[in-house]
């Protein structure tokens, strides 16, 4: 009722009626220019939605699943139409197909991660073998060019309990860390870096109660029931941390953050209003503390590096790259180049699929060229799948801004500032 009082009549949540057909979105769609089978964001989104509302038979599964869900159309739209949401919501609403075995495997990052971590040395060696990659290509249609991220022998959660949990006692302020699957199963070092920085800044780091995968891969692969279940579990955990324990939640992945904040309510209908504002990227959390004068970071005098920042699509949508780049610019010995914001093409599990390999690499090509033409030590970005794509497709090495901060930070000097 409230909505009808404050808004014009018949305005849907994704605002598709506001589309004025200006076609600006199509200019910035990374898919349309490399794959003509994709009808483009305007046609697949608001235009198609008009037809689908009249008759669901207008739903074209094969065409709509070519959307990367990068949301660059939404960033470009001057009329506030949530074009990406319109497309993803249509896939959820109308799709009758059951996900393939391959898609289910790739989407279940928690299950696969748990098994693979237990047998990490074997799994890492096996999936790196050419014949194995050829078989996966033929049988599962996972493109043989893809190099799987290595699994870590020890999960981040295990490390945390063994080596970090005890040191988290005695802080006056806490955050909870949503580490996500990548940190837990593939790259615990990033989580260790986060703990190091937050502790230096005067914050103890807790884990969430029963953290589940954010579910972004489940959503994109059509496993909506499971995604919704995990979203509910995560929101329960967020509520406990934020509302009961007073500990805001930080993450080091732009996509996990974006999914929890925006895809939960928009696509899965899981309400998060009471915790959304306090669920954010660690770089934004730190920026706020520094900007308001509550925190000062001291950096090592002898640290020097040259980096280029790549804006992941979901970071572009959040509008938050300024937090990560502002923190990086605070490091005296760091020289920062800002890359023109372009999609890398991988879009989570999309680029792993054999049928999407060419599109993914075509989409990423302009970014790869930019990177090859930039002379830096590291590419810095807030997204793990961008990292895999860039490291596979260019000669660049990729780091998360939190890892760069952890390298550059003078922990003792920073702690002294608030301990006295």
């Amino acid at each position, binding site marked *: 009722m409230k909505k009808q009082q404050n808004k014009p009549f018949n305005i849907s949540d994704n605002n598709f009626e506001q589309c004025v057909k*200006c*076609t*600006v979105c*199509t*200019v*910035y769609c990374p898919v*349309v*220019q490399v794959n*003509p*089978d*994709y*009808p*483009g964001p*305007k*046609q697949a989104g608001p*235009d198609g939605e008009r037809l689908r509302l009249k008759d669901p038979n207008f739903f074209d599964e094969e065409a709509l699943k070519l959307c990367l869900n990068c949301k660059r159309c*939404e*960033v*470009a*739209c*001057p*009329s*506030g139409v949530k074009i990406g949401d319109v497309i993803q919501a249509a896939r959820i609403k109308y799709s009758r197909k059951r996900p393939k075995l391959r898609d289910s495997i790739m989407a279940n990052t928690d299950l696969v991660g748990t098994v693979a971590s237990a047998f990490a040395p074997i799994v890492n060696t096996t999936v790196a073998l050419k014949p194995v990659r050829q078989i996966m290509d033929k049988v599962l249609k996972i493109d043989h060019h893809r190099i799987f991220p290595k699994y870590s022998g020890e999960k981040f959660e295990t490390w945390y309990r063994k080596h970090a949990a005890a040191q988290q006692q005695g802080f006056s302020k806490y955050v909870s860390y949503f580490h996500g699957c990548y940190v837990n199963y593939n790259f615990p070092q990033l989580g260790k870096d986060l703990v190091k920085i937050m502790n230096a800044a005067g914050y103890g780091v807790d884990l969430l109660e029963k953290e589940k995968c954010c579910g972004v891969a489940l959503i994109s692969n059509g496993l909506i029931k499971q995604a919704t279940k995990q979203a509910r579990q995560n929101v329960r955990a967020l509520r406990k941390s934020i509302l009961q324990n007073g500990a805001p939640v930080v993450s080091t992945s732009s996509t996990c953050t974006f999914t929890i904040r925006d895809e939960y309510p928009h696509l899965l209908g899981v309400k998060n209003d009471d915790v959304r*504002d306090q669920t954010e990227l660690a770089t*934004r959390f730190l*920026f*706020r503390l520094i*900007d308001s004068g509550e925190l000062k970071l001291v950096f090592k005098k002898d640290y020097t590096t040259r980096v280029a920042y790549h804006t992941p699509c979901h970071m*572009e*949508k*959040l*509008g*938050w790259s*300024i937090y990560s780049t502002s923190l990086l610019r605070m490091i005296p010995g760091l020289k920062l180049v*800002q890359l023109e914001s372009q999609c890398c093409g991988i879009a989570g599990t999309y680029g792993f699929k054999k049928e999407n390999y060419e599109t993914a690499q075509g989409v990423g090509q302009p970014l790869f060229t930019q990177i090859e033409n930039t002379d830096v030590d590291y590419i810095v970005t807030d997204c793990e799948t961008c990292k895999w794509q860039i490291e596979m497709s260019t000669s660049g090495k990729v780091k998360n801004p939190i890892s760069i901060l952890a390298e550059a930070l003078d922990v003792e000097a920073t702690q002294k500032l608030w301990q006295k």
Partner: protein
Amino acid sequence: MKFDTVIIGGGLSGLTCGIQLAEQGITCAIVSSGQSAIHFFSGSFDLLGKVEGREVTNPLESIKMLPPSHPYQRVGHHNVERLAGEVPRLLARAGLHFSGMAEKNHFVLTPMGTMKPTWLTLEDFTCFEQNGELPWKRATVLNFKGFLDFHTLFIKDGLTRYGVEVQTRDIAMKQFEAIRRNPSEMRSSNIAKVFDAGDALNQFAEKVNELTEDADVVILPAVFGLFNTTVTADLKARVKKPVVLLPALPPSTPGIRSQILLRQRFQELGGTYLLGDIVQEGEFKEGRLQNITTANHGDIKLEADHFVLASGSFYSKGIVAGPDKLYDPIFGLDIDGESDRSQWFDKQLFNDQPFMHYGVKADEHFRALLNGQPIENLYVAGSVLGGANPLKEGSGAGICMVTALHVAEQILQ
């Protein structure tokens, strides 16, 4: 987050103001709710094309005939002359080269095959001294097969009236077959991307040469050079006959290129461009705007010494018409416009529509008014100002850029 100046609106006005300030060492942020109307750019900027229905020869002289409430009159005749002279230099520093001058309008050919007076024309396009005198006997209008956004018969009809004999032809090439498979995406920007990528231009130029041996001029849609700025010049060098480009339906290729170059210039000068974010409200204290809240940044507010409202007119939601009132959706500033809905429009569609003149009220220093009082540090620039009918006058771009530079000068004082 603290800046010297925060500009609300990332279109022609906001970017012009931001570049001018950033060139003077001011730390600026621009908040833009999406891509701007520069994507509809025809290739020319108008200063003043018509006054009271009569074509203008010298815009600087004709400005004196405008009502005192018109933005040009409020900027002042001498200031307009000075600032209009500054505009092409500012654009050139961003890599956008225009010809034309404020003392005398030149003419350009429109996609209807007619001619219109204008102030500045991008180097891709062709300028004419006089209206109606075309230097050709025979013209060939070429289009891409399957491209629906360029209407060759309109051009033919128009040019025939000027006494030019016109042939229309289509060109098909295998490089464009892929995008043709998707008729709704056979757009100028996608054609431009094919040329940007490299190898199509040589072959295209050869085909053009074959098809236009007996013509004095080749007319083509302006679909060259989106991200690659040298494509238009390359094309003109390879085609033997003079090439005249005409605008296709938007999104405009030269427009997108212009938007990108202006935004890059602003960022290279240290400016922060926040795209896809919406300003929700402001906090006022003792007649000053303290900070603004945006959708993306939430509790991290954008603070500044000065703010500029360059949020556009109705189309960009700089002002909004509700069922019974006009309002500025961000701050609720005073609106210069009728409160009675029945006075908003004239039932004769082609008459000068009153609503076109509506905008945010500003004092003589272009500071916005709230409840009758000027906000000391909130300036208004561009089409959100009102006081003009850009459509009738041919004055939209001129007002955007001249008022943006004027406001920048107020801030720099």
